[in-house]
């Protein structure tokens, strides 16, 4: 992997982000409705003078083009503006919410890949066996269930009928002063249901995908050679075949990242998870435009980074692509 490729990829990523900023801004400014009225409404009422002072304070009285340039300038300096609702900068609101979302998304991603690949490999061992049929059916089911509905069903089952798992956020407030290990276990306890809910959809896809690519790899000359050389079936399956089937899985994992963030939005809402998705959803209901723009910007940034990382690991994993532009 050469540096120029990385630089080009990064530069392009930045360009995409700039596009996101412009689009967000125009969308919200050109949509019907007066942001000044929204702010005044949150404060509990407005007079004409108050509206004027709000417009002045938030720069809403300038021409749209000027506002856009100002906004881009601020974003470049890491300033995403002030929330209309909370008396705080959007960047600090997002900062409070990033880690929970990343924790949820990464856990779900790992969970779905690990379980999915294991199921897929087991199914590929006997393409016409029971396991294979199970994976096919399960994959289709996982794809067809609305994620929020799975979440609600799990809440009813495991929080209400059998109160095993908590659903009031990421950690028990009573344990906030607890030591590291207890706190970690507490977070894990809270993480089980949301992460599993989110993993279910993608789990199925990975199972199906790894089954398919395993079948392809298993049929290749390369594996036949390995078998002929007397490698054990288990070694063939996990050492040789899986390594080669990893590439498509990696690609899909990278592409899925954006969808995962969308799914996280629903899951966070169902489980009161204190992440960016819930912040975005609540901000939409409050018409807190700066916060909505901030989250859109930040979430897009996460997708861009994930894409770059995928590209890079792809290159690392597949020697044939190294050196190519």
């Amino acid at each position, binding site marked *: 992997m050469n540096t120029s490729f990385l630089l080009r990829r990064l530069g392009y990523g930045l360009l995409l982000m700039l596009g996101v900023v412009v689009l967000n801004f125009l969308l919200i400014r050109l949509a019907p*409705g007066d942001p000044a*009225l*929204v702010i*005044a*409404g*949150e*404060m*509990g*009422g*407005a*007079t004409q003078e108050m509206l004027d002072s709000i417009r002045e*304070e938030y720069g809403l009285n300038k021409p749209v083009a000027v506002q856009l340039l100002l906004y881009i300038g601020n974003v470049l300096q890491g300033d995403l503006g*002030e*929330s209309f*609702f*909370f*008396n*705080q900068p959007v960047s600090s*609101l997002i900062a*409070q919410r990033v880690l929970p979302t990343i924790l949820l998304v990464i856990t779900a991603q790992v969970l779905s890949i690990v379980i999915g690949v*294991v199921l897929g490999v087991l199914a590929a061992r006997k393409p016409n066996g029971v396991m294979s049929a199970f994976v096919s059916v399960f994959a289709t089911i996982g794809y067809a269930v609305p994620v929020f509905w799975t979440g609600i069903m799990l*809440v009813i089952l495991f*929080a*209400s009928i059998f*109160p*095993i798992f*908590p*659903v*009031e*956020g990421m950690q*028990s*407030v*009573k*344990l*906030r002063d*607890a030591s590291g290990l*207890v706190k970690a*276990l*507490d977070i*894990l*306890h809270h993480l*089980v249901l949301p992460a599993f809910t989110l993993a279910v959809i993608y789990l199925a896809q990975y199972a199906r995908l790894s089954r398919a690519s395993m079948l392809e790899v298993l049929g290749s000359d390369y594996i036949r050679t390995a078998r002929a050389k007397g490698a054990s079936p288990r070694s063939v399956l*996990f050492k040789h075949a899986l390594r080669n089937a990893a590439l498509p899985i990696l690609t899909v994992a990278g592409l899925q990242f954006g969808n995962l963030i969308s799914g996280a939005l629903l899951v966070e*809402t*169902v*489980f*009161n998870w*204190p992440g960016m998705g*819930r*912040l975005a959803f*609540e901000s*939409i*209901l*409050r*018409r807190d435009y700066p916060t909505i723009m901030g989250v859109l910007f930040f979430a897009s940034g996460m997708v861009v980074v994930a894409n770059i990382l995928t590209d890079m690991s792809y290159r690392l994993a597949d020697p044939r692509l190294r050196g190519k532009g």
Partner: protein
Amino acid sequence: MNCMSRLMGAAAGAALSVAFSVAALPVFADGGTLVLGSTQTPRHLNGAVQSGIATAVPSTQIFASLLRYDESWQPQPYLAKSWEMAEDGLSLTLQLVDNATFHDGAPVTSADVAFSIETIKENHPFKTMFAPVSEIETPDPHTVIIHLSKPHPALLLALSPALAPVLPKHLFDDGQDMKSHPLNSLPVGSGPFMVEEFTAGEAIVLKRNPNFFLEGRPKLDEIIIKIVPDTSSLLIAMENGEADIFPFMQGSQNIRRLQKAENLDVTSEGYAAVGPINWLAFNTQSPKLSDVRVRQAIAYAVDRDFITKALHRGVSAQQRGPIIESSPYFDDSIPAYDVDLDKANALMAEAGFGDGMALTIDYIPGPNEQQLNLAEYMKSQLKKIGIDITVRAAPDFPTWAGRVGGHDFEMSMDIVFNWGDPVIGVHRSYLSDNIRKGVIWSNTQQYASDKVDALLDAAAVELDEDKRRALYGEFQQIVAGDLPVYWINALPYHTSYDKRLQNAPTGIWGTMHPMDQVSWGE
């Protein structure tokens, strides 16, 4: 792989059981922590520049105020150890306690009080609270004289913790706009608890103030306000002991569910001063509703009894007039408009709408039981007197507020709070000079009556309690006849709390009052 997954399973199982047993440990050694679950999200924690429950609950713990109120609406000393209203009602002299300090150690002085009242007068949406204040005199650090341009009997109630927090002048008075002051999110006050952490939309951690000026208080070490927007999750947390108190709970099912929980008490006490009224508002300027007979016909068609008993399953109380029925100012003799469809149909015919009419109804989006469900009920009930109702949904609160505030509606469900004294929360909906387009919870019905204006203006300055009550009685009779709104019920606000909790906050202000005497049992 098999081995691996077995290992992981075992680890996860162990982790869960540890986490579980830790969560079940009793948490109150001395003082202890109180976890207050809230479905509402505060914008910030400074009640001097922001109205509403969400801010008032933390604000009253952080800031002390001049007076506090007992269960029978009587003012009690707080930052003011004594106070005296002048004979003519034009000035109030207060003596401050001399041992009160802010959380940063600075003493609370008369300058802080003067600064706070001026700030509130300028920035708080309830303009009537301190509008008559003409000057605040501070002859010495512990004496405050509030001068009034006219007598203002509501002043004492307006000095409650929920409405008039005392801010530290040395920290806030730095020229920044008070409505968006950075300290609003992490304020310093002189109340029983200090802010340790405020995660917007998530949690507020309040720690015991060791130097609180009232001896031996507060009892609790910590109050954590946990924001859980989804009510069902909060109910589960209450049942499992993850949260200890859930104020402002509504929804008949939620209330009945927690009433059944063995570890919890449920009460409707604690909301007398809030006075939350659920009503049907009429746009009295709309051509179809400008005739009082149409409004009366609607009142006769709607069955308040059915709403409170069947739709709300008996948890909400009926409300017949503009002043909450639990207030000393409520007049019991006003017309109730008991359901009478014949009379309603006759009134419609008299008004020239014998062939029926079409109307729209708006509602506040959110918990449905008080708003959408009643709108849907109106739709089916008013069909019986020939009114064809279209329910207009709003995707979010700002949209609804824009319609009603902008007078772009025919009828709307609405919830308006009394906020203690009628001057603060009742006058605003009926005074003709408070018809202010664009402002929600002003006189959005655009009701104008010279008689009512005169009565309310007189009641606002009447110092004699009996005479004041009589003036409000007459006011209630008139508006109950004119019906700018049809009052339906008091919101069934309930508080659920852990049975072991002592001195649970059930005064007239409920949890919008310093919880310095609340404690865990032995």
